[in-house]
């Protein structure tokens, strides 16, 4: 036991670790954003030429560009309002009332959150599109209706449909965390029901609603699938950026990217300023008030019927997607309902390796990115929380930054930074290789794993690590035997969310994919383009099933913390 000499591991390396991890994160997350901003000014671009503000000048003078910016803003505001208008009442309905089938319905209503945006969008297209199931159904009834699901209203509709879930979930979480005693206190003081709602319940729901607002607004700001499929000529910033890039107007694309990043940042700061106590956590725990029972039989049946109809409407697009995947190619022409159904598309998809390739690509790239994000997340969180100070805060900031920045921005930033071979300034040609998409997925996974790992680690008693150390365990043993087992729920929650998100990623992929690494979302888009709707739908269902499976496994493991 007579121990002398230096401690285990070189102390120099140990004190360097936070800086090494920070350097990696800065290179991966912060640096590409700086490169894209610099290149927008013509600095450091391979084409040469001196610094110039020319591209910015044309951005501010071209009405197209201005419009895209303005549209992005108001679409986001309206999307948030619409999502709140649906989600908040639904949250109250399911949290405060005892209606038949409440648990199952309540879970079904939350389902769209688990599905990739692109799947939701094409499901909408198949159902409400101009030659969708709804239009054909009405026309077959002899009604002379026709519409085009395109432009701003279409985008808003899809946004409201997919984003109400944030408000729904946050409202439920906020309500379930409220202490029923406060309501009873208000009642005993003589407050009426509406007074209680406006003076007790809603003010205390404010952090939850603010959290949902932030999440919805930021998601909407970076939304790509809906504007891309339904926008037509109506361009928002994300679609404008991709269009500029495809047109070869690289510098303009970089200017637009920079502007969108600034817009996102400004929105984040503004929303936080409006509610400084903003946090995505749902607040203090208490015993929630008892659910209201519906006394009359009629009311119960009515509520149940209403609930099921609602769930039906909300799930109809996905049902349509499944239906469409069963329609063999070239068998559905003018009929209201597909005359032939079969598994031809699935057979097609599973029998050819070329068709199966995108699914395998998506799975391995999402898994690799998730795994890397967990490893980086655990390292960053431990170093950050132990070290504290400037490197600690910087580590956490780098982990959360990609959450605030639209995926399109990161895709462009990586495309700009990693298309030049200049190792001495940290730039490598990764665009066009196998590595660029997993790397981009990693960037976007970081905040998802990071958030829950940081939260999990904050809840862990630091004395546990000290206890392990005083019992003679080195830091590797402490991490493997104490920290990781205890962090498991947090790791699984974060990893599950990251995996599901990356599995269905479209926004990053469309900028960075190569033929060999094309993911499911890209295959859906190209199938749609060549009118192979059945194949596109089958891919959509595949994605839906994979996501749902991952979601269920995750929800199970994470202890049902939805």
């Amino acid at each position, binding site marked *: *036991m*007579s*121990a*002398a000499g*230096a*401690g*285990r591991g070189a102390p120099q390396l140990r004190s360097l670790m936070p800086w090494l991890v920070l350097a990696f994160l800065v290179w991966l997350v912060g640096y590409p954003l700086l490169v894209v901003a610099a290149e927008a000014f013509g600095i450091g671009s391979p084409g040469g030429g001196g610094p110039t503000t020319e591209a910015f000048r044309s951005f501010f003078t071209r009405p197209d560009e201005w419009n895209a910016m303005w549209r992005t803003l108001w679409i986001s505001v309206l999307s948030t309002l619409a999502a709140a208008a649906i989600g908040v009442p639904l949250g109250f309905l399911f949290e405060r009332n005892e209606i038949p089938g409440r648990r199952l319905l309540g879970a079904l209503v939350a389902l769209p959150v688990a599905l990739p945006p692109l799947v939701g969008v094409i499901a909408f297209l198949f159902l409400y599109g101009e030659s969708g199931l709804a239009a054909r159904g009405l026309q077959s009834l002899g009604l002379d209706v026709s519409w085009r699901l395109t432009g701003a209203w279409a985008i808003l509709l899809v946004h409201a449909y997919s984003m109400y879930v944030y408000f729904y979930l946050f409202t439920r979480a906020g309500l379930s965390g409220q202490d029923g005693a406060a309501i009873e206190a208000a009642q005993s003081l003589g407050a009426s029901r509406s007074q209680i709602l406006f003076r007790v319940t809603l003010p205390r729901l404010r952090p939850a609603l603010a959290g949902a607002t932030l999440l919805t607004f930021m998601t909407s700001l970076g939304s790509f699938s809906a504007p891309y499929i339904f926008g037509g000529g109506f361009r928002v910033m994300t679609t404008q950026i991709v269009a500029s890039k495809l047109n070869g107007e690289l510098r303009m694309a970089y200017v637009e990217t920079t502007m969108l990043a600034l817009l996102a940042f400004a929105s984040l700061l503004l929303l936080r300023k409006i509610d400084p106590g903003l946090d995505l956590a749902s607040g203090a725990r208490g015993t929630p008030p008892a659910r209201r029972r519906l006394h009359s039989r009629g009311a119960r049946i009515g509520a149940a019927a209403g609930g099921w109809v609602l769930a039906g409407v909300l799930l109809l697009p996905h049902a349509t997607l499944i239906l469409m995947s069963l329609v063999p190619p070239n068998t559905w022409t003018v009929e209201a309902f597909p005359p032939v159904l079969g598994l031809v598309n699935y057979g097609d998809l599973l029998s050819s390796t070329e068709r199966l390739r995108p699914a395998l690509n998506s799975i391995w790239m999402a898994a690799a990115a998730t795994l890397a994000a967990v490893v980086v997340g655990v390292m960053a969180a431990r170093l950050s929380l132990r070290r504290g100070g400037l490197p600690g805060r910087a580590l956490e900031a780098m982990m959360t930054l990609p959450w605030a920045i639209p995926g399109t921005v990161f895709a462009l930033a990586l495309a700009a930074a990693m298309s030049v071979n200049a190792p001495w300034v940290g730039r490598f040609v990764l665009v066009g290789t196998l590595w660029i998409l997993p790397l981009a997925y990693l960037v976007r996974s970081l905040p998802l794993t990071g958030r829950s790992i940081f939260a999990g680690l904050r809840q862990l*008693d630091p*004395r*546990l690590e*000290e*206890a*392990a*150390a*005083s*019992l*003679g*365990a*080195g830091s590797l*043993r402490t991490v493997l*035997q*104490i920290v990781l*087992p*205890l962090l498991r729920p947090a790791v699984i929650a974060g990893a599950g969310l990251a995996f599901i998100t990356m599995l269905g990623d479209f926004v990053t992929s469309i900028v960075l994919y190569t033929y060999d690494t094309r993911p499911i979302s890209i295959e859906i888009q190209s199938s749609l383009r060549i009118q192979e709707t059945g194949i596109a739908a089958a891919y959509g269902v595949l994605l839906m099933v994979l996501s749902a499976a991952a979601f269920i496994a995750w929800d199970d493991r994470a202890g049902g913390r939805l």
Partner: protein
Amino acid sequence: MTASGVSVRFDDVSKAFDDTVVLAGVSLTVEPGEIFALLGPSGSGKTTMLRLLAGFEQLDRGRLLIADEAVEHLPPARRGVGMLFQSYALFPHLSVAENVAFGLKVRSGTQGETEARVAEMLELVRLSGFEQRRIAELSGGQQQRVALARALAPRPRVLLLDEPLSNLDPALREETRADLRRTVKQTGITTVLVTHEQEEAFELGERIGLLNEGGLEQVGGPAELYRDPASRFVATFVGRCSVLAGVVKERHGGDELTVHLASQPEAPPWRCRGSGELAVDDRVDVCVRPEAVRLETGGGPGLPGEIEAERFTGSNSFYTVRLAAGPTVEVAMPGTAAGLSGACVVRQLAGELPSTFAAAAESGP
């Protein structure tokens, strides 16, 4: 199973967090096999001393020696120090036996040795048969014992106890206290304990170090601290006492003084004790223990006052007496509640010499 104890020495140890000095040049020797209690209010630096010894914090200046060997540069894992944490810090995902075995598996022993040691330790803390229980299934007292077994299992040279009883119900504390002392004494290990509760320090500690604002005020046995406090802080922190202002009237041999309680020169002077530095006419604070005085309602010599409140504890009645001069003094009257009230005089009990200290700059009421 007794480890022959080793000594622990703090040698002029200083520690600051940012700009806050937590320990200012503390020196202390804990004897081999001794149970030493660090007592003090929160923020006095006692927990920092423990964490420095365990290696969770690094000292700024000074030396730390265990068995005369400098340890301040060793990582916690290599100091041979076992710690019982205030929150116990049991690993919630491991069973009772796995918790106790954790420190044994780190050292490469055979499986048989590990199992035998775990069994031995669980027997020591009277938890045999609890091997496979989850931590969450145990009561607070049982958790505390598992934590103790886990800390002792790897045969540390020194045992550290951080507020070992503060997480227990008051009813359970007294029983656990005796239990803890018995177990630790049985192993013969040198033990350093941190507590902010005087009663705990007195019952567990063979010697006590009283800390205040990063420095040791006094080190000694419980009786010494109580009867012969080295400072006004020690007198007021250890046990109950009322502080009365006075003026030294006369010095006698040794450390005896005659003191006039300032505001009442007409009352008889008191016999007190004070350091040789106190001179005649010095203003002093006299620390009066409740059991060193009596009150009489029938008049007579003493400090006149009025009974303000009575507190009956079973074996004593404590009276708060507002003296005519303003301050209050607490008086213990043995026996059942006498229900005294109204005017009274407070007089010194023969043979009890209150401790006296140079008056603080602002002498309070």
